């Protein structure tokens, strides 16, 4: 639909090898659970597919799907951040299930579609939810997607920016279609993540 996607080339390996990774907390190699929230159809999974495009995590042996994806980002300070991205179903009927997904998440991306005021309202609902029930030190990003459709814009950047500032989030407009700002979004989250103190 909205975004042209490249499909993963590598296939799912044996299910028998269930995740063989080292979970030791290493200050140079962070691992963070990131949850995606937003109305259905705003392009949540497009954003992630664009982010991991062509570089599906080879350590992910279990399944290939767009609902769960992981991607490692190398930062300039020579740390790496491995994002484990949890997508959620955006339809209203599934809203009550979201807490199961954002529990324990270190970061959240709340997505709306800049051509849809309803999706912006829904995004504000999710922000409130996260403030009430999410972990207090969660990094939150407000993302206006489909920025390439600016002719049909109905949510002003300024309004969204103001809202984000009032709620201690950072705000960015992206286009999963043209890949605009997609990497910037994840880099910004990575930079803001709390670093474990060396002891």
């Amino acid at each position: 639909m909205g975004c042209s996607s490249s499909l993963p080339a590598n296939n799912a390996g044996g299910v028998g090898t269930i995740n063989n990774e080292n979970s030791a907390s290493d200050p140079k190699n962070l691992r963070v659970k990131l949850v995606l929230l937003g109305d259905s159809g705003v392009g949540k999974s497009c954003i992630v597919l664009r982010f991991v495009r062509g570089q599906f995590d080879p350590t992910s042996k279990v399944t290939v799907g767009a609902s769960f994806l992981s991607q490692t980002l190398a930062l300039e300070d020579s740390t790496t951040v491995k994002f484990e991205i949890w997508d959620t179903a955006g339809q209203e009927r599934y809203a009550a299930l979201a807490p199961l997904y954002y529990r324990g998440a270190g970061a959240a991306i709340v997505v709306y579609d800049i051509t849809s005021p309803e999706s912006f309202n829904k995004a504000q609902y999710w922000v409130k939810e996260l403030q009430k029930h999410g972990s207090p030190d969660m990094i939150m990003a407000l993302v206006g997607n489909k920025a390439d459709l600016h002719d049909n814009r109905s949510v002003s950047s300024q309004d969204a920016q103001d809202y984000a500032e009032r709620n201690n989030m950072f705000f960015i407009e992206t286009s999963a279609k043209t890949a605009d700002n997609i990497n910037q979004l994840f880099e910004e989250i990575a930079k803001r993540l709390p670093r474990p103190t060396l002891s």
Partner: protein
Amino acid sequence: MESPTSPASRLDFYDFIGRMRRPAAADLFHSIRRSIRLSLRPHLLLALAPCPEWPCGSNSDLRFNYCSFLVSLSQGEPNAEEDGGRVQTFFAEMETAIRDHPLWARATNQEIDHALEGLEKYIMTKLFDKTFASSAEDVRTDIEISEKIGLLQHFVRPHHLDIPKILHNEAAWLLAVKELQKINSFKSPREKLICIMSCCQVINNLLLNVSMSNDRTLSGADDFLPILIYITIKANPPQLHSNLKFIQLFRRETKLISEVEYYLTNLISAKMFIVNVNGRSLSMEESVFQAHMESARFGNHISVSGTSTSSQGLGTSTTGLNQESGDTEGLRFPFMDSETESLTPAEVKQLHELYRQVVTRYTLLSKALRKLSVDEDQLLNSVDD
């Protein structure tokens, strides 16, 4: 000789047992024994006790250690959460003990992991009866969920859950259903989890195929979760609640992360959706939803009462109906024996509400009967007999 050469594809618990039988393992076993005694509750130890194949071998020192924790046994009430914590502590201590031990000094991470997988399977298979669906409440919840799914199966259709037409694929769905239904064929948390992962993989493959053959963006959770819920309803997997709880409590914590945790969470949320399902969550009026549930109960009743063949089964099925209604009529229809004059305004209101329900229910039941090709009047006559 010390470096194990077990095939990577196999979870070689026998390698682990083999090592444990060597005299060199005595000190390790000693520390394990201590941690087992400290961490496991007595009733779990009791379950572990009659295991002659416990890796003591003929080593008298180990045999002594093994016997000494049998001495500490006594009965205890099952408490799954507490047991889960203790078993997890035990697994963690075992991991440390194995990693630190000279016998595993040159073993790769994978080999150590295989030993631990073997240990988990061994321990949890032995403890299964004490830890799986161990409380009356769990048993009740399993039955409730299964009965509810049995009713939902009658009328929930893909569109109620927002599954787009393009993803309708009975063959793939059936495959996913079968994977999920395998869950009770296994006793170890890992193997149960694999059934869930396989089911999710079938769904993901479907999403992938559809996206490739239709040049459509690969679907995310907006499509995945609805399909998983639909599959769960179709599959009605046995003891869903207990299986999920068992995996959450007893799968090694270090393995319940990342992708595996994500897909497990999806099934947990499918269960939650089903437990809390109402009219609104299926985009229908609550009264319509209730009527559907009621007519599904009726439908189940007919089939439960023993219609082996639908063409000639009417007689037998109504026998069951008769008995049922005879027993509970007074409870279900409180105004049947009331005098009209003696009804209070509140009761009239209640009666009116009941009337509405009865009409809705009757309308739907008639419809259901027509669907079953049952002639309503004939059915009524046969009940009167």
